[in-house]
């Protein structure tokens, strides 16, 4: 237990947390960022970022390294390796967080918790995943282990397409399975995917209207059960591995009963000022309701929270007042 009272504690050092920390630190607010693993979050695993405006192409670790250095250069403290497990409003108006055995106190808290891989929840997925026996959620991590082999990937968003294209570089064959007949990914990516799929060697195959209903094999993955959602037809499809890219779920379990959450676990906020149901606590990035789940929007959320936080410091009673153009936190 320390006597320090920070101006702000930011929970999570992904893009949202680091964006917030940058603005808070530049405004000379005493800033602590608590991170359960290492800075970067999900974006750390990406080797190809091409949609960050102003940066033609960068890899995740490279971008995070820059963000972190920038944040620390203005005096913010980043504390990795500790997971926040509790949050509490104190009688003096401050907010306390608990991580490890330590309590940290601040005038305001920004929850930038991010999200984690959604599971398919089909038989075999958990077992093969835990055994390291052919189920993965990260193509950039595990593609090299499937050199010359055949894999199935699942999903319809940007990550699914990008990762499938990455897998195509290593595997003998990758089959992308999607439950609808069109992808929701950026058109630029689906065009690139279709070009690869059109190549005569057949090393990239797309199966629309199809889902995986089971992952099968003796010891390691040997096949998946596929089902066509329109015809109902099922088949066993041989493969050596399955890569799952079906979205993310917010890391908000510990907040149940503490701040208002949606039934899917996203933190309820007003989308202008990012205020949660607990005065002094903001939410930013993938973990909040209505998040676009993008690197850039997470950073923007973090910055918005850092700015509206100052309105809260000016007038704590403002917390429950509606969104209005009389309060433009950035000033006008």
């Amino acid at each position, binding site marked *: 237990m320390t006597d320090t009272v920070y101006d702000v504690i930011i929970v999570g050092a992904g893009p949202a947390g680091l964006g917030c920390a940058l603005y808070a630190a530049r405004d000379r607010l005493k800033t602590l960022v608590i991170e359960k*693993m290492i800075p970067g979050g999900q974006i*750390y*695993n990406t080797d190809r970022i091409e949609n960050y405006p102003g940066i033609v192409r960068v890899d995740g670790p490279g971008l995070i390294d820059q963000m972190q250095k920038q944040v620390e250069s203005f005096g913010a403290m980043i504390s990795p*390796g500790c997971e926040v497990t509790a949050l509490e409003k104190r009688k003096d108006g401050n907010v306390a967080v608990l991580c490890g055995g330590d309590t940290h106190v601040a005038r305001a808290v920004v929850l930038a918790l991010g999200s984690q891989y959604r599971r398919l929840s089909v038989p075999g997925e958990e077992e093969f995943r835990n*055994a*390291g026996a052919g189920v993965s959620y990260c193509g950039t*991590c*595990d593609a090299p*282990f499937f050199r010359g082999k055949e894999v199935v990937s699942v999903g319809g968003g940007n990550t699914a397409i990008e990762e499938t294209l990455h897998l195509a570089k290593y595997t003998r064959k990758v089959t992308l399975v999607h439950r609808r007949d069109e992808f929701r990914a950026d058109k630029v990516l689906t065009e690139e995917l279709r070009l690869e799929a059109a190549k005569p060697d057949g090393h990239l195959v797309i199966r629309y209207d199809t889902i995986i209903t089971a992952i099968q094999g003796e010891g390691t993955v040997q096949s998946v059960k596929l089902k066509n959602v329109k015809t109902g037809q099922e088949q066993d499809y041989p493969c050596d591995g399955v890569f799952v890219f079906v979205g993310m779920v917010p890391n908000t379990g510990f907040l149940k009963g503490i701040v208002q959450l949606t039934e899917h676990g996203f933190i309820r906020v007003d989308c202008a000022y990012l205020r949660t149901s607990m005065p002094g606590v903001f939410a930013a990035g993938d973990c909040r309701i209505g998040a676009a789940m993008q690197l850039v929007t997470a950073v923007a959320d973090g910055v918005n929270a850092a700015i509206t936080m100052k309105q809260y410091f000016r007038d704590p009673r403002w917390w429950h007042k509606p969104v209005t153009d009389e309060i433009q936190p950035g000033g006008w």
Partner: protein
Amino acid sequence: MAEEGLIEVTEDKFEDEVLRSEVPVLVDYWAPWCGPCKMAAPVLERIAGEYEGRLKVCKINVDEEREVASKHRIMSVPTMFLFKNGALVDQIVGVTPNFENDLKRRIEPYLD
């Protein structure tokens, strides 16, 4: 590059360092391209320090030691194998959210 406490193992050293070790050995299969492996690294270093004398922590770069990786059927990184008296007694694949605690919980039952 071995940090303090973490021993970099190659295929020819595997038998001596791991299978013939007097204390249990946690072997971390990692790769330079792997983000989660970087997340795991500081945790493994802390564990090596905390359990010094009771546990040995080794690293194998699967990009350089491809034969070891395929012989041990590594399909995902990071994968951690726990060896005791030359036998594989447990394994963890990937970095879980409460990684340090999870790892300790899995290791402790095998320590003297």
